[in-house]
């Protein structure tokens, strides 16, 4: 085809091709370098976060290795023979605490989210005040919730005493804003057209929420609840203030005033003791907690990816 062209045309075409080719070539070296440096910095940032986590896991695993064994789960703390001591009361305490948190946080958190998203008139100042406060509460340090729990739940108006249920209530207050925010996000992700479609059939607002909005937002809410629970599971500070401080060697009861413990609190207790055996136990406890938290968070991520609705 080219050979049939007159010489002038062929030359012109070749010239144009050369220009295009040079335009498509790599840009100046300095721009390229800037891009590479930035890319390297980003990698470094990611590596920093990852290395921190890996160092923590490896260090705890190495330090705690001598204590690994079933007795970590089946045995209680003991000052007489620390080699055989474990976390049983703390594990049971943490399970009770978390069950209590879920029981409290799911209905209250989801209810608040439904009110704020579906019923509240955003133009009214009190609703905007509630919204603003929920967002701020999510950022309040946990120790402050501990003080609140001590003043209002353990003592004061509720006067529950230093019982496990008071710990649950305190942790529930702590993670409630997170659950409300996550649930609102999940409700808001349901497009208005779904509500319109339902209402246009003559469904009431409650039927629409109950049968369309809630089912569609459950995966998002569940993700939020799991993340909130994993935060509650790792909290030690507020629990220290509301009664989990004792060195408990028996299985705790939800409403008994005999005392209770939780995983992070017992790890803290072990780590404070001078004997080396307890330090090892603390490291092993850290490994247990990390495994549980990673499992919970992975489950939350899986749940979100599996059931996320593409609108």
């Amino acid at each position, binding site marked *: 085809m080219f050979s049939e062209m007159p010489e002038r045309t062929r030359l012109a075409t070749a010239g144009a091709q050369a220009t295009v080719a040079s335009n498509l070539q790599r840009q100046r070296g300095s721009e390229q370098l800037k891009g590479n440096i930035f890319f390297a910095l980003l990698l470094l940032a990611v590596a920093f976060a990852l290395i921190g986590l890996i160092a923590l896991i490896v260090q705890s695993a190495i330090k705690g290795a001598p204590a690994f064994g079933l007795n970590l789960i089946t045995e209680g703390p003991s000052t007489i023979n620390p080699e055989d001591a474990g976390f049983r009361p703390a594990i049971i305490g943490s399970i009770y605490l978390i069950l209590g948190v879920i029981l409290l946080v799911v209905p209250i958190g989801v209810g608040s989210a439904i009110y704020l998203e579906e019923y509240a*008139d955003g*133009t009214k100042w009190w609703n905007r005040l509630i919204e603003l406060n929920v967002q701020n509460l999510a950022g309040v340090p946990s120790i402050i919730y501990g003080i609140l729990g001590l003043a209002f739940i353990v003592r004061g108006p509720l006067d529950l005493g230093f019982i496990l249920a008071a710990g649950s209530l305190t942790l529930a207050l702590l993670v409630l804003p997170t659950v409300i925010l996550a649930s609102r996000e999940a409700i808001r992700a349901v*497009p208005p*057209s*779904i*509500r*319109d*479609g*339902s*209402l*246009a*059939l*003559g*469904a*009431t607002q409650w*039927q629409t929420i109950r*049968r*369309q909005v809630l089912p*569609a937002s459950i995966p998002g809410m569940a993700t939020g609840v799991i993340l909130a629970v994993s935060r509650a599971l790792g909290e030690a500070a507020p629990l220290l203030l509301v009664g989990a401080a004792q060195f408990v060697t028996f299985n705790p009861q939800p409403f008994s005033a005999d005392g209770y413990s939780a995983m992070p609190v017992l790890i803290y207790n072990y780590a404070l003791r001078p004997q080396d055996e307890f330090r090892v136990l603390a490291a092993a406890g850290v490994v247990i907690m990390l495994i549980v938290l990673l499992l919970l968070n992975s489950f939350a991520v899986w749940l979100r990816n599996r059931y996320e*609705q*593409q609108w």
Partner: protein
Amino acid sequence: MNSNGEEGKVESQMTAKKKSTEKALSRKIEVAERRLPSASEAVGEPVFGLEGVGVSYGGKVAVRDVSMTIGAKEITALIGPSGCGKSTLLRCLNRMNDLVPSAEVFGKCLYHGTDLYGPEVDPVEVRKLIGMVFQKPNPFPKSIYDNIAFGPKVLGLPDVEERVERALRSAALWDEVKDRLDDNAYGMSGGQQQRLCIARCIAVDPDVILMDEPCSALDPISSGKIEDLMLELKEDFSIVIVTHNMQQAARVSDKTAFLIVELDSTEENRWGQLVEYDETEKIFTNPADSRTEDYVTGKVG
């Protein structure tokens, strides 16, 4: 004397019907005794009577002073340039505007003689009788079966399964989906989804179907199917359709209302206004108003 007597008879019939409509629209009505006001009605008998209807959003008027009568078992099209308030007007007819907190409706919106915005009227009951199909297909994130069954279930209507099949057949969808009723509705094509939404709407036996640009998100073949469907459905239902597609209005509708965007002298406020409402044929061949003619012939708009 004679004519007076007949007039009196007609009048008493009309008040009886108005009573039953009022009852159907007020709260606490048993589903079993629900009667469709225009089930027995002849073509063209008035379903809606709008008297000076206007809507404002947050004090800003979107459409004003619309007066027209919409007939039973006919297709009434609302056409006009964008922003002329045709969708807003449509949403007045089943009180969907109530969902916009700042919306306010003026004038009288009579449905078989009962003001839809009267103090006794429950918007939920209104929407049970006056269904709606939206611009973008909006199936629920559920199975095809559950999409249709949702309405009958929440309204407590009997024979849900039968209704689902009947609705899907009426929407010319049954043969395409009968083997995959349990599949998620999101797996359907856009046109099928829109027909599913129409089926969902007729599964609750409404009196009127409002359609808000039902074909604007669809390809021509799917649009054609929906148009065929509308022509079949008007045997049983009164249909009001908003469309930006003039040819569509010309093809399917019996009556056409043309709305226009008005500007005030400062050109700061704009609102929709009804220009002309007549038989579709007349609107498209021999309109009374020159603005209508300019629009339907494509000179403006």
